[in-house]
């Protein structure tokens, strides 16, 4: 255990701080004045797309987890917006880097990093949620092309996206996991219908996407025909890394503490109520646990199990932080939409509802528990049901 920064890392932190100080007029209220220009500036400075090779439009640094963490911490401390982080950047780019062809890397990575191409992810289907490999959207050969038909669901950003990375069944006679391909195509291709999917938050954070004979060149497959399941697992690994980030939870806890210090009931601060204070302290211990657990996963080779629990515990903790904020607000906590007396623009309520979605999405809590018990504790799998 040595949590001090080496001289090299301390110098790097000073560099990041100097950059943030010099660019503090480029953003306001946590949002960049010009998102695409900000993204280009960040890539040039090495604070976005840091480890993506230069030839594909990144900064080209060697992977260095600790520098990555310093960047994250300093940006949070300065209230500066991070680089873009859509599904294209977070999931497609790492996947292309691992399994894409040279042409695909050159064509897509640069424009995606610069925010010129927005992506959505076409994985889940009404009949393929936790059992993703059961997906039925079919791609039928037609000359050099596929004709794609079927339905996707939970497709966030589908309405704004230029492109989709999509799982389709190209080999109907192959075994369940071996008949799938990972394919890229434009969202303005004829035959695509995007319908907003409104959730309990009142917003349409997701969409349903319907495909009817959508014509896509076969060469758009990534990682080989019938290899889509393995390609997708590369991507899912990156998605789970995104969910349950302890830095974000810590920021929310700080906001909750401020809320409890500033809000009053009958003239008494909420923080002076011992029951609320006790609940706050319970959550604070959990937030510290997840923070140190996160630090450990970055630098400890023996942290396999510690890594497996991040998604389950982190998402649940976010939900509990929002829950306490609502309870602390009491009747004010039920206000929502725009209106008088509303606190934080209804953000705590929205988080409470949306974060439940994150407990479910990206591998449900129950799937996470299967993974923890099977891969982490070596427990046996549920016997397969015949025919599934």
């Amino acid at each position, binding site marked *: 255990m040595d949590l001090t920064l080496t001289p090299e890392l301390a110098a790097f932190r000073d560099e990041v701080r100097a950059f943030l100080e010099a660019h503090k007029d480029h953003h306001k209220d946590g949002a960049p004045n010009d998102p695409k220009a900000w993204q280009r500036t960040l890539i040039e400075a090495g604070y976005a797309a840091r480890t993506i090779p230069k030839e594909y439009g990144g900064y080209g640094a060697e992977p260095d987890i600790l520098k990555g963490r310093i960047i994250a911490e300093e940006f949070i401390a300065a209230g500066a917006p991070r680089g873009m982080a859509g599904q294209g950047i977070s999931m497609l780019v790492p996947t292309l880097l691992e399994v894409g062809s040279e042409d695909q890397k050159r064509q897509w990575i640069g424009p995606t990093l610069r925010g010129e191409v927005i992506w959505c992810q076409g994985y889940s289907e009404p009949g393929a949620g936790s059992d993703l490999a059961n997906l039925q959207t079919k791609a039928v050969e037609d000359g050099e092309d596929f004709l794609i038909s079927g339905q996707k669901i939970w497709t966030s950003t589908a309405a704004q996206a230029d492109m989709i990375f999509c799982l389709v069944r190209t080999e109907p006679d192959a075994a369940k996991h071996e008949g799938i391909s990972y394919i890229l195509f434009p969202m303005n291709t004829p035959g695509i219908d995007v319908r907003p999917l409104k959730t309990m938050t009142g917003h349409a954070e997701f969409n349903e996407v319907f495909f009817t004979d959508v014509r896509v060149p076969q060469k758009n497959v990534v990682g080989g025909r019938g290899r889509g399941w393995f390609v997708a697992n590369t991507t899912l690994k990156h998605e789970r890394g995104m969910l349950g980030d302890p830095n974000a939870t810590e920021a929310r806890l700080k906001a909750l503490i401020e809320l409890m210090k500033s809000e009053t009931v009958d003239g008494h601060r909420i923080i002076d109520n011992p029951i609320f204070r006790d609940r706050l302290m319970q959550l604070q*211990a*959990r937030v510290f*646990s997840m923070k140190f*657990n996160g630090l450990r996963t970055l630098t400890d080779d023996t942290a396999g199990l*510690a890594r497996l*629990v991040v998604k389950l*515990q982190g998402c649940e903790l976010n939900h509990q932080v929002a829950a306490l904020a609502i309870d602390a607000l009491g009747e004010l906590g039920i206000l929502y939409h725009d209106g008088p007396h509303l606190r934080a623009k209804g953000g705590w309520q929205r988080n409470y509802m949306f974060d439940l979605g994150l407990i479910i999405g990206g591998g449900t809590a129950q799937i996470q528990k299967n993974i923890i018990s*099977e891969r982490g*504790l070596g427990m*046996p799998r549920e016997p397969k049901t015949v025919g599934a």
Partner: protein
Amino acid sequence: MRFALSEDQTLLQDSLTKALADLSSLDRVRRFADGGEATAPDIWAGLSELGLPGLLVPEEHGGLGLGLLEAALAAEALGRVVAPTPFLGSAVLAPLALRLGGSDEQKRAWLPKLADGGATAGAAISEPIAGARDGAGVTAEGGKLTGKALFALDAMAADLLVVADRSGVLHLAAKADASEILPSIDATRRLTELTFRGAPAEALSSNQALDRLRDAAWVMIAADTLGACQTMLDRAVEYAKERKQFGRTIGSFQAVKHLCAEMAAELEPARALVWYAAYAFDNAPEEASLMAAHAKAHTSEIGRFIARTATEVHGGIGMTDLLGLHYWFKRIGQNRQLLGGPERVRELAARMQGLAA
């Protein structure tokens, strides 16, 4: 920057775990617990060969001069096998008290003896930390102690006692005027009630020493719970992989394996918190008390969950004396209340941050 154990620390953990498997087997623990033994000198002698009693004693006084993280790894290893030892009083609290407030003469008199295991020490510090019950509390006047101290740790047959008076000042005493075992749920350690009727004592000098002792004790108790929880989880997983019902190992039922996953998901991040609290004690003094408090309170909560859940995974047999699982269950339960239950400790945690008056 590295949040991981060093090679030496891993080695220490491994060698202790290995030695304790023989020294403090379940059979040995059973003999201690059920036979009503006051101390287990054979176990302490075995651990003394490894230098454990001198872990925190400076090298100039014959110890290993290591830090609280190493002590936490030792406490975790002891918790894993619910070892009956005077580790907390003798190897942690007394050496720390002497380091913080002892005169050169006191250090020379006691540290070498504690370090080689030739002498043991107990600590009576409950009242100013956990609160006074049943009129307990010790008063010091003119070098003499009077009053009662409940829940004294490792004081059975101790050669030296560290006693906190009502105002939080620490004293060294050779012995109390009377000492009585307080039978408790956890039979793997002996708690005592000490009575002082003018017993001679020497005051230690530092007035912050009690806070430091409290922080160290909280981290040690947290680490002990961590170790005991790890064993309960390991045994639950092992049992679930062997036990068959309905023609399947019960570990293949999600109802059972999810319980195990939940235990692991609670335990693993708590480990990082305990490590950090121990590291902060020596390296981040401004955070040390808060982290110690959180480590103590949080392991109390997850400890309760894991103790009951691991027992439940075993089914009816888990409740019996046959498996001995109850020693771990009770050790975790006792740790929860020792030197302050989680509600009290969390209130102190809030106070440390200026969030409570």
